[in-house]
């Protein structure tokens, strides 16, 4: 999994690319750190180029959301399609995390 972060005043957009699985634990850790440290109140994860996510990836997204919530930041998932969209739906993540098209 690769990511690129674009930080603006109100909003930071993180674009994920590739596959998000348990093997990406170190990268997710680094990403969460960058999201915590930037000044924007709203953190958006753009999933439109993410091809695959597993249950560990879902767990790590939940951890990211929890850490953002702890410091009053908004956390949003956007643009999920294909396999990723199906997994978010089966895991009923929309009940816990804000998901946008």
């Amino acid at each position, binding site marked *: 999994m690769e990511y690129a972060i674009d930080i603006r005043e109100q909003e930071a957009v993180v674009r994920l690319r590739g596959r998000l699985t348990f093997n990406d634990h170190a990268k997710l850790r680094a990403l969460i750190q960058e999201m915590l440290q930037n000044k924007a109140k709203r953190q958006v994860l753009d999933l439109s180029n993410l091809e695959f996510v597993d249950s560990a990836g879902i767990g790590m997204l939940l*951890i990211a959301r929890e850490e953002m919530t702890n410091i009053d930041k908004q956390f949003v998932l956007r643009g999920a399609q294909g396999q990723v969209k199906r997994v978010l739906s089966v895991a009923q993540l929309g009940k816990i995390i804000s998901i946008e098209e």
Partner: protein
Amino acid sequence: MAPIQVAALHGLGVPQDRLERLASASGLSVWQARGGAGGTRSRPSRPADPAGRVVVVVDSASPEELRAGLDKPFTALVESVGLTEGDLVATLVHAAGYDLYVSLTTVTANRLELANRIATAIAHRHPMAEARREDMELALHEATTNAVIHGNLGMDSMKGLSITALDRFSRDLTARLTDPAFAKRRLEVSVGIDQGGATVEVADQGSGFSAKPSGSGGASGRGLELIAAIAQSYEILDGGRRIRMRFAL
């Protein structure tokens, strides 16, 4: 009299005399690629029957060779490292009985994107919509991940939704993947394909587990939930060391 269909044996990094000895002991013929250069010896060998099975035994191989290990005509991939010759022969015989089969160390299985290779191999033999292949890959990925992380590496799920839990998981995973005692434990996947679908078993060499009900809101525990949503059915066997999944195709 019609020729008896016998599975064939191919070696990666295996000296020819060892390959012939293993083939003979396993009751397999030595695989010759159709139209290929053939062996260096002049003794006759049976050409591969396109409908037949070809088991690949690996002494050493590059990542590319391993990735191609389940591409047609190969049907099984068995790593020899750490096995006595007797155990290896028994595994090769066992492998030849399945439509698809792998027996790999945890480290190799993890590097190989095994679920992707197996789902792709099943789709080559039983065409299906891409979305269906993706779903099956996810179910296989969850099963092999459970076998690797909870089974062979003996790790618990992440406890709690925090960076601390993620850090602990990260540290443990890195440590255990480099600890030979854990990393050399094997992962076994066996596939039977029939008219109605595919039966896939994933087995590990861990100490077993009992499926806890997937709690709501934790960082872990959704693997079996995803398998349940995708597979027609599944059973946990061998004290938690084996899962058998049925996919309707």
